[in-house]
């Protein structure tokens, strides 16, 4: 039995393991994938400073560090249930039951799907799937692709696909449907893209992003948005084209696109079939928190964090005894933030098991680090993330006051 069990060997889980193992705690990390590193493994981009963020290398560094500490990493382990009895957590997996007084849930994020007619055809994949196939497995996902959905994740991965020599013909929006929201409205999409900082898909958006925050200018920009799209490193971003249907017999053969107006309304008679042998659906990310839900953790819906998030403190503890969270499960941010949060969680767990002044000092530093990394972060998946974090702090305050009240009453 380990003293702490971590679910997820991504940036948050690995950093959390290192932080608490450095204080002598015995750690077991379990992960579903064939190797540790989580979504770090696929990440590759250049920072505004010119430096490269090579996630594969970052993962390697963390994994090497775990090897010098009492950390056991077990891959290919899928968790299907989690329960607490007395003072221990019981985590049920395909490899048996893991038992531990503390558990850190660092399961990251999942992708929002965008249902499009024909999206069950082989060759249609989530954009994250194409990232893993390209950068982790190094297999070409196809010869000619179309990305449906224009958001920060889509552009980050588009860049990676281009680097690997994968041909993406165009980026288009999903057609308006009863289930679509902002992602099908060119005006709304443009608004989000102006917040994307250096990842914004073109110099115009990047440099003009302050101007583009003015509604009337944005409307004008859309009016004059080039019909063929705005080139991003060779791939046109077509904000006025929408995917109506993915077609193919047995597998993807093309996508039917139509021209849309600034509000996303389809202009009839403009439908045309474009050839493609693969399609990436980019719906964005949401916190993957199902295990926290199963464990009975209360949730709060905070759109600025990416959706339903388990209630947690700045120290990454949840209202459930012995359960901590870190990384994208707490809100959609970069891998660097996940690492910083993992360290906080690891130290908070060390504090919980053997409170002392030295750990507390490190914890305070780690908390500061999270703020620093966030302020400096060139990527912001959600522009209002800082507001989201503040909202959660207020929720926690209320929650802990209520908790204390309950303790007084009972």
């Amino acid at each position: 039995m380990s003293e702490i069990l971590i679910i997820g060997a991504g940036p948050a889980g690995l950093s959390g393991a290192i932080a608490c193992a450095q204080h002598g705690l015995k750690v077991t990390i379990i992960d579903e994938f064939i190797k540790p590193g989580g979504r770090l493994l696929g990440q590759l981009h250049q920072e505004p400073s010119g430096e490269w963020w090579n996630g594969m290398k970052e993962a390697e560094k963390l994994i090497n560090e775990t090897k010098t500490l009492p950390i056991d990493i077990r891959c290919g382990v899928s968790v299907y249930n989690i329960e607490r009895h007395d003072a221990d957590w019981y985590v049920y997996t395909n490899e048996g039951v893991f038992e531990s007084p503390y558990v850190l849930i660092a399961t990251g994020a999942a992708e929002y799907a965008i249902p499009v007619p024909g999206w069950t055809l082989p060759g249609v994949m989530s954009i994250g799937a194409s990232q893993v196939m390209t950068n982790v497995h190094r297999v070409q996902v196809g010869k000619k692709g179309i990305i449906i959905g224009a958001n920060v994740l889509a552009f980050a991965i588009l860049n990676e696909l281009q680097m690997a020599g994968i041909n993406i013909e165009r980026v288009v929006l999903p057609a308006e449907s009863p289930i679509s929201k902002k992602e099908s409205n060119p005006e709304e999409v443009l608004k989000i893209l102006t917040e994307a900082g250096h990842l914004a898909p073109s110099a115009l958006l990047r440099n003009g992003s302050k101007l583009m925050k003015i509604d009337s200018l944005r409307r004008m920009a859309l009016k004059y948005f080039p019909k063929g799209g705005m080139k991003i490193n060779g791939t046109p971003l077509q904000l006025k084209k929408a995917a109506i249907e993915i077609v193919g017999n047995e597998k993807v053969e093309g996508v039917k696109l139509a021209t849309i107006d600034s509000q996303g309304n389809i202009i009839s008679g403009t439908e045309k079939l474009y050839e493609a042998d693969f399609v990436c659906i980019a719906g964005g990310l949401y916190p993957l928190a199902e295990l926290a839900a199963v464990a009975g953790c209360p949730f709060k819906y905070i759109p600025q964090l990416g959706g339903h998030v388990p209630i947690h403190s700045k120290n990454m503890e949840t209202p459930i005894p012995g359960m901590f969270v870190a990384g994208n499960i707490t809100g959609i941010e970069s891998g660097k933030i996940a690492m910083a949060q993992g360290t906080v969680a690891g130290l908070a767990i060390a504090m919980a098991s053997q409170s002392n002044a030295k750990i507390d000092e490190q914890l305070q530093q780690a908390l500061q680090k999270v703020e620093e990394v966030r302020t400096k972060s060139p990527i912001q998946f959600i522009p209002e993330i800082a507001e989201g974090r503040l909202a959660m702090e207020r929720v926690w305050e209320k929650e802990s006051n209520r908790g204390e009240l309950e303790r007084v009453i009972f």
Partner: protein
Amino acid sequence: MTRIVHHPILGSLNNRQKFSFVFNGQELEAYENETIAAALLANGIRTLRHHEESGSPRGFYCNIGHCMECRLTVNEQANVRACLTTVKPNMAVQSGKQHPNIVKRMVEENE
């Protein structure tokens, strides 16, 4: 599909061990430490199974173990996720097929 052997930042992939495995009776080539899904795609195979009920063709969708679309029978064990399973020499991989549903067909015919 082909493999991405050279990459400007991630470097080149060399000296990887090659071996064969079997998919639906067909012998295919794979590299060590890759998933079944990656090996099949590298061999140009997109359709991993057919939907049990409708028979519609399916490939991998999420590639990280959530969607279960890539489930295959591996060495006689059913419902193994191709995206999370490392391919091994001589592995026997079988794709899922549409189930015959005689009762349902009968009901449909009489409707």
